[in-house]
């Protein structure tokens, strides 16, 4: 149960690098940096605690910590907001957690190039509070908008609710500084200087370091896109009598070609049933409401006006009933995790049980959504039948492509889990279910994850299946960049890269 001991003198070395106020080994410091909101085996908490935590304040300090870790063969796990829904920031082999939250400064606001350069520890809401004064917005808008940090957004290659209009993290981060697993500090982007958006010089390394879940280094600075703050936002919710009607309408809205369309969200029948349990917006809706679509347009007021008219026309022509301004504006405004709080959990006999919200995400091609939906619910039902600690909270599908939102959908099934009930048997069943959810996604031409990452227990087993020869390339890259296997070791099955030597 005690924390894993570091080699003699390592803590002193860390202290020499980061300063005495920024190195922690106390029990509360490590226990509180073991988990993220992804399903966490509470009954095996101590397996995931780091041995030490550092809060560096510069790229040079991060680099020195990484070099030290190489010298001693100690794992390093980067940690940003720790709000990820996969478990990139959860240590698998203890080691040093490099927590970058103190690196949260706005370093340069470049009006000419319309970029802002920040430390990776800054949160988007806080950044936008500053950008607002200048008429800009940084439109990376995940459900965790009020709490996730730019570094974690890069580490997971995040998805934004309004990405259909403004792009997702990979489209919004222009370039960034990385400390590589051996401690070298490099700048990656498309190519050229830090503000160049499109280059064809060399390999496109920016994408290599997007979504690596801490296995390829630590971001220490990022140059971000600045967007003119939208003059107008128009959101609209439509109801439908069946999932299939709503699914067809979702496709029509997404293919509308409306340039101000920021996103379309499809709520399935189970999701509406779930919301009727306790949501003031949905309880009064007539029984005929079985599925709902939310969509929104952002941009200049005149453009939003005409775009919204067209979207409203499509919504109505496809059989949708407009749910009114109150739901449309209120629910959209509070979309940031509006639908997931612990009290929503129910046991099989309908009792309230405090459950964690676990959002299993995948990228699913539009035509496959109905089939995937049925199979996913069957997996969730089977879990619930066997263990009265799981609950099916329904499925959302969100437009997933940046700027061209008609192809695949970020599809998520929300599963409530009464985590205090974990034991080895239920954990194993969960991991199996996770793997089955992933298998369905792949079988239908999708990807295990659209935005969270695919390195959790269960799903990760199928990453080689999904990526095929690409996974072999991943291992080759991992071994080349991280010869001592110190960056978040064992994550993403990349321990295999070293077994084959």
């Amino acid at each position, binding site marked *: 149960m005690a924390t894993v001991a570091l080699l003699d003198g390592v803590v002193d070395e860390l202290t020499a690098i980061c300063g005495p106020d920024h190195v922690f080994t106390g029990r509360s410091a490590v226990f509180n940096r073991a988990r993220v909101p992804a399903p966490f085996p509470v009954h095996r908490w101590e397996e995931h605690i780091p041995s030490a935590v550092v809060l560096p304040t510069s790229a040079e300090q991060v680099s020195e910590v990484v070099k030290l870790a190489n010298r001693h063969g100690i794992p390093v796990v980067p940690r940003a907001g720790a709000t990820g829904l996969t478990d990139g920031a959860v240590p698998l082999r203890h080691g040093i957690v490099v927590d970058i939250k103190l690196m949260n400064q706005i370093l340069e606001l470049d009006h000419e190039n319309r970029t802002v350069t920040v430390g990776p520890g800054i949160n988007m809401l806080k950044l936008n509070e500053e950008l607002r004064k200048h008429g800009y917005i940084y439109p990376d808008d995940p459900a965790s908008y009020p*709490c996730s940090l730019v570094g974690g957004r890069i580490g997971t290659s995040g998805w934004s609710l309004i990405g259909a209009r403004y792009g997702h993290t990979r489209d919004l981060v222009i370039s960034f500084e990385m400390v590589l697993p051996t401690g070298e500090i490099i700048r990656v982007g498309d190519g050229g200087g830090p503000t160049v958006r499109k280059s064809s010089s060399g390999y496109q390394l920016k994408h290599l370091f997007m979504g690596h879940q801490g296995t390829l280094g630590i971001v220490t600075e990022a140059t971000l896109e600045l967007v003119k703050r939208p003059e107008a936002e128009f959101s609209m919710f439509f109801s439908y009598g069946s999932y299939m009607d709503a699914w067809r309408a979702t496709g029509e809205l997404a293919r509308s070609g409306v340039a101000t369309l920021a996103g379309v969200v499809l709520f399935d029948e189970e999701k509406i049933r779930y919301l009727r349990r306790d949501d003031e917006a949905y309880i009064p809706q007539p029984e005929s409401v079985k599925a709902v679509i939310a969509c929104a347009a952002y941009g200049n007021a005149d453009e939003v006006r005409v775009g919204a008219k067209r979207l409203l026309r499509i919504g109505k022509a496809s059989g949708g009933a407009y749910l009114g301004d109150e739901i449309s504006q209120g629910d959209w405004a*509070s979309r940031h995790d509006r639908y997931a709080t*612990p009290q929503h959990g129910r046991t099989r006999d309908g009792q309230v049980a405090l*459950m964690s*919200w676990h959002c299993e995400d995948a990228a699913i091609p539009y035509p496959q959504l109905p089939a995937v939906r049925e199979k996913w619910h069957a997996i969730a039902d089977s879990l619930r039948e066997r263990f009265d600690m799981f609950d099916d909270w329904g499925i959302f599908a969100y437009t997933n492509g940046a700027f061209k939102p008609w192809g695949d959908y970020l599809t998520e099934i929300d599963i409530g889990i009464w985590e205090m009930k974990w034991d080895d048997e239920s954990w194993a069943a969960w991991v199996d279910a996770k793997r089955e959810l992933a298998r369905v996604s792949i079988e239908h031409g999708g990807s295990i994850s659209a935005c969270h990452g695919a390195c959790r227990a269960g799903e990760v087993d199928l990453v080689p299946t999904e990526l095929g020869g690409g996974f072999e390339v991943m291992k080759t890259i991992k071994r080349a960049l991280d010869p001592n296997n110190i960056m978040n070791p064992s994550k993403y099955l990349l321990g295999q890269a070293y077994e084959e030597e």
Partner: protein
Amino acid sequence: MAETTASDQRTNGAQTAGTQETNGAVQALIEEWRDVAYNCFSSGHKFCREVCPVMQVTRDERHTPTAFHANVVAMEKGHLSIEDVAEDYVHCTMCGACELRCPNSLFTGDFYRFRQRTIDVVKAMRALAVQSGVHQKNWKRWAELTNRWGNEPVLGWTKETSANKVRAWAVGLNIPTGGETILFADCEAAFYRPSVPRSVAQLLTAAGVKFGLMNQQWCCGGPMWETGYVDIAHAMAEHNMLDWRKTNTKRIVCLDPHDYITIVENYPALDPNFDEFEIVLAVDLIAEKIREGKLKLTTPVRRTVTYHDPCRLNKRMGVWKAPREILRAIPGLTFVDVDHVTQWSYCSGAGSNLGVEKPELTAEISRRRMAKAGELDGVDTLVSACPWSERPLTEQGEAQGIEVFDIFELVAEAAGFEV
């Protein structure tokens, strides 16, 4: 050296032998707070973080509401002990921002009649620490002196703030003792910033409000509850209620939001007949008298001011209109307002005696608050309505060239009083 705790030295895990009484107290805390803690632990949203004034400075996950709740879960599982976490819980001003932003309260609170009570969890853990003999050095000393003198040692460790000096601020104002209404002047205002109670007293008199002062006022007990010295808090509260009854007092006017919230939140549980008292905020009363025309503000105050929403008024009680109404009634004043929701993430850093244990943290929180004021066009003055906030804000305002006033000081000036 890197931080290490006594617990690092332990070899047998988190469970200390402890006394039977301490173990019982730990179990009682877990029983009481398990569900609330698990509501946070399992939600994992962490919307509370970037509005937390402490977290904005330290960026340390140990100082987050997430950790404050997760520790309860970890204690139940035997991973952590009160010794491991007691010092973490110092890092909270009890401003309430986290509770406002919590999705559990925001989105489903009404339906389930549930509120994430982070402040109460922090209070419970601090009380458990004290009960378990885990003290913070300066808080302990502060509690001992408060207990000895009757009022908090706001003038330093050696300058006595005894109950027989608590009315010194009122010299020359001829305020009687007792009566149906009394003015309750908190320790900080009474001893450190007497211009505040003097202003309030003169304004109430001018508005025709008849009031007296307590026979012998003791500290409201709030900081004792907040730092875990619950027995002392109870003694303070019992004394004050007894004093009110001796003079047939029915209405208590609080000029300090900390007193108000302590009395309305904590006193009723100690006394089944508490309902006989009416607790009134001076800021509400003065706003009402101005509105009714009973208090005339005719002397122009030539300042460009912004208003600091005190956390206990704004975030914890939803009182943000009355102070703005008052400021808009002052002639000559240019008021540059920052809305009360933006101010959810502002704080002076003074709350729950953070500055007694961590003065550098209070100073940095105040510095950032004053820097926000400094960004506003032409602002030369920051107005607060909480005496506790005014000391650290004044100190930090000097570097920014911004003066800090209490709202009653400005109103008194506008009403033509010397303060």
